[in-house]
């Protein structure tokens, strides 16, 4: 299984991850190496099966649906890179803006 640099870029777009052009061949090589390695799972016959494994308790206990005291030592304003009037500040959504302007 070989992953091409173009495939790496496609996956990187899905993952919202910038991949540096210079690093691209190495990233493709390492991804190919890993995917080649894990491909040995295909040697396990499809007919071999066992009860599916699920981590954790058999049943998830729901918490009571009630308003509780604010559990945080401080609010999002102190954590966010940019915050104004109760909102996280982000740049414009490019594709949306272009569509709006095109109308």
């Amino acid at each position, binding site marked *: 299984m070989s*992953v091409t640099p173009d*495939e*790496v870029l496609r*996956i*990187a777009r*899905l*993952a*919202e*991850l*910038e*991949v*540096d052009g210079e*690093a691209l061949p190495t*990233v493709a090589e*390492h*991804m190919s*190496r*890993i*995917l080649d*390695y*894990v*491909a*040995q*799972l*295909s*040697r*396990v016959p*499809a007919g*071999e*099966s*066992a*009860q*599916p*494994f*699920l*981590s*954790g*308790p058999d049943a*998830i*206990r729901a*918490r009571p649906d009630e308003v509780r005291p604010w*559990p*945080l*030592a*401080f*609010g*999002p304003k*102190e*954590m*966010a*890179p*940019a915050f104004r009037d109760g909102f*996280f500040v*982000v*740049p*414009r*959504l*490019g*594709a949306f*803006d272009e569509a709006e302007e095109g109308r």
Partner: protein
Amino acid sequence: VSDAAEALASAKAAADRLSKVSRLHALLTPIKDVRKSLTQQAAAAHPSGVLYGMPVAVKDNICTLEFTTTCGSKILEGYRSPYEATAISKLKAAGALIAGKTNCDEFAMGSSTEHSAYGRTFHPIDKTRVPGGSSGGSAALVAVGAVPAALGSETGGSVRQPAAFCGVVGIKPTYGRVSRSGLVAFGSSLDQIGVFGRSVHDAARVLSVISGRDTRDATCEDRDPLRLPTVPESLQGFVIGVPKEYFPADLDPGVRRACDRAIRILRELGAVVREVSLPHTPYAVPCYYVIAPAEASSNLARYDGVRFGPRFDGSTDLHSLYRTTRGEGFGAEVRRRILVGTYVLSSGYYDAYYRKAQQVRALLAQDFRNVFDRGVDLLFTPTTPTPAFKAGEKLADPVQMYLSDIFVCTANLTGLPAMSLPIGKVKGLPVGGQLIGKAFLEDEMLEAAYALERAVPATEEA
């Protein structure tokens, strides 16, 4: 001497010891901050707590209010959590002192602590080698006696592997034994907080304190805290399985000798030792390296430069902000795992990789059930295929690095409790032996560990 004076003395002594081992680069918190906080904590600690005055270092992916939580990543540089992990609250309620945050592979992804954005941690005995990972900082600090115990986290062996490399005890509890509230998520079906100790007793005491129910974590079982067993006189009545797949032909000869000696000792202690088979073991590492990156790619989607952490901008639109922040904020190994995880979950590949890995995971769990159903109480294996390897030795080939987890990742995939304890040395480097128990029967595992620890010449060459 009053209780408070004793706790203050313990805090000062811990800070002094930590400052003397700064050469290891095991602690990410500046020592002056640790010293100041330890003093404040000692003054406020609960004198009636079972861990009163005990300094416990904490891996930097477990949230604390006293110190930053960076997960060894630039993307969380300077991040202060607005809440603390339940495990930390329980430690403090028991009188323990949080002795700073320890270095780790970025977001716990690695087996050598070389993937920390803040530089690698050095092996406590040989600085040219790695302490293991991802909880290498915690293991190294316990190994040099700077703290009697430390917290780490496990997704695929990240407590047991560094415990073996550094010559200390490392315990991964059953999935659901310890709350994960406040443990930064990597692979949610695998992650557990684990414990390091200089002795089985130290590690078990801390595990007992942090275990038990927690309404903040729906995956935490509704059980009482772990009760510590007494040290047994013998291991009569125990049936210990030795899985043949964990002793491959290329196992390091020194590791094999140490394990053979430990098995002889288990027999001398009265245990019945028998060879068993876990036939799907060869597929454990490939299975893990599909499931863990898949879960990581989802969990790490939250780091986008919007809600917390630094923003690497210059961006003119939102997608560019995400990509730049994530591209610059994450290191090479984390980026690689996010890409692999996204790939195996993507359309056209999901069945071949992710669904197949889930099938294999079920078969691995079945292997263990089969063995335990045939009267085996515990399994004994080597923790790692080799002693600590050289720094840089496995960086060029990610698969070689992943293979150092070959004996430890099965317990994470199957949710079982497991631990590593020192069983000897090879050319001066520690070797770990692993015990794997039945789900929620940590007490049986600890009984065997107590007995083995007392009998095995862990500081002698195997």
